[in-house]
């Protein structure tokens, strides 16, 4: 189901990215782009470098070679929080919520790049700080309604079950109202029902806010259903790129997933 919102402009372009740790090559000469308004899936076997790819996109890792173009300009060596400010939000493979904080606070933290009252006003609270807080609370409550997590608003997230934590994490990323949303295995470890819910949320987000999404996912059924285009990594190299149906038919991709017989 290709929602044809593609405008043809690339929101993010990666050009010849290579990344290594010590002597270990994590990514080798990878190039692809993510168009405005599309859902782009990154797939590949375990250890293919998918998460490293996301880490490069949001600036947690700095590639030794290659260029990252975001929103039409070449990106310098920024820190992750600066990149978040430019409009890239993400979720994590192993849930990385702030366990001691409530659902509400986690989501409010997601909006931190949009808040800017200074320490002085924060100390006084009445006035600017409270006003800002309430404005953002409105937005966050909207997301809470959207994800149907009203009941756990004030529960410390450490106490929530896995599936709900994943949902809260999505909420935190949504709260940032980013241009690009990176989802690292949003459906890992979920049962069919939860996966369906999650798919629905992802698609709704995409349709309602027009957010560009890049996601890593192992469930091929999900990927083929919701992704507009797919890029396939294996051993840190790009081995396939294109529409889901083309990728599915690609011999290299099939080899990577099923193994090649060398006789």
């Amino acid at each position, binding site marked *: 189901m290709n929602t044809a919102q593609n405008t043809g402009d690339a929101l993010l372009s990666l050009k010849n990215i290579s990344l290594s*740790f*010590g002597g270990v090559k994590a990514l080798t000469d990878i190039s692809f782009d993510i168009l405005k308004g599309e859902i782009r899936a990154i797939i590949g076997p375990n250890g293919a470098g998918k*998460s490293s790819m996301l*880490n490069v996109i949001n600036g*947690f890792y700095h590639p030794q070679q290659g260029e990252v173009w975001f929103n039409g300009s070449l990106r310098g060596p920024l820190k992750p929080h600066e990149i978040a400010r430019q409009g890239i939000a993400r979720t*994590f*493979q*192993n849930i*990385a919520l702030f366990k001691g904080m409530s659902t509400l606070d986690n989501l409010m933290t997601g909006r931190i790049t949009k808040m800017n009252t200074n320490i002085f006003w924060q100390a006084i609270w009445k006035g600017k700080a409270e006003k800002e807080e309430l404005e953002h609370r409105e937005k966050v409550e909207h997301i809470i309604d959207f994800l149907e997590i009203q009941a756990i608003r004030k529960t410390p997230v450490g106490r929530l079950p896995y599936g709900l934590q994943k949902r809260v994490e999505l909420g935190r990323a949504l709260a940032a109202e980013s241009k690009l949303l990176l989802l690292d295995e949003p459906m890992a470890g979920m049962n069919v029902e939860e996966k369906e819910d999650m798919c629905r949320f992802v698609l709704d987000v995409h349709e309602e806010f027009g957010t560009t999404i890049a996601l890593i996912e192992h469930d091929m059924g999900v990927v083929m259903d919701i992704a507009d285009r797919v890029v396939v990594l294996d051993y840190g190299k790009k081995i396939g790129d294109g529409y889901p149906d083309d990728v599915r038919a690609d011999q290299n991709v099939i080899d990577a997933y099923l193994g090649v017989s060398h006789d």
Partner: protein
Amino acid sequence: MSPMILNTIEVILNGLMAGVMYALVALGFVLIFKASGIFNYAQGVMALFAALTLVGFQTGQVPFSHLINVVFGTNYHHWSSGINSFLAILLTMLVMVGLAWLVERVVLRHLVNQEQIILFMATIGLAFFMEGLGDLMWGANIKVLDVGLPSGGSFWWEDVTREWASEGSEYYGMYIDVLDVWAAGIAIVLVIALTIFSQYTKTGRALRAVADDHQAALTVGISLRTIWVVVWSIAGFVALVAGIMWGSKSGIQFSLSLIALKALPVLILGGFTSIPGAIIGGLIIGVGEKLFEFGIGPLIGGATENWFAYVLALIFLMFRPQGLFGDKIIERV
């Protein structure tokens, strides 16, 4: 050689000797940290406690006599006029093993899977508890510990070094405490013994397995709890050795546990998991602080030994957070 150079050499030698002492305490930290990921703040107090207990046995004190006398109005002090040093050391070791067992049983067992910083704070609590316990058991007065190690300046060395001074200069030879030399020797033996233990015995291999990976060690049937008791016992032994050395040198008193705090910067330099690191770190700190006090101390008011080690560690951390021997930390999400 000019007296200035000779004096500097003397300072360096004394620094090395002090460094051995720091290294001894640091060694106990490393052992426990490797096996359980616990940063045992109480290691210094364990040395204090061990030394107190040793003197208590040596002189035949009745434990808790102070408390007993106050509560029951009795007047016990000593149950014998004292026992053989060797026997006293054995008994003290037994107490340290018992303590290790208690610590595992009462504290560690309940803190499995907690964050490291929580464990660290728990050992601060343990340190306070043991300090109070040691004083309550044996009294808080400063005690003299003598297990028969030779001490005092070495005349031979003084004569030898006097010869080195250039003709006509006023130089009276270097002062080296024989006790320090003994301490260095014992430390070397201890490290060799520990290395042999961990390389060639079954328990030693289990220890290394646990240090490498808790979960994996569990799956091959190593009992974490037993290992912890063993490790804390060994650390107790190391603490006893350190306590004997420190105690013979400067008497047993509360400041012992403060001096032992210096093992922390030692570990930062050497890394928390490396035994050679602990030793080299100890030597660097020992020599560094003595040289700094000798060279720069007089210009800025002296007593720089109070903070030099910590500030050195802090500056070092800014540039090499992983320690001298650690690998570069790669962070993951």
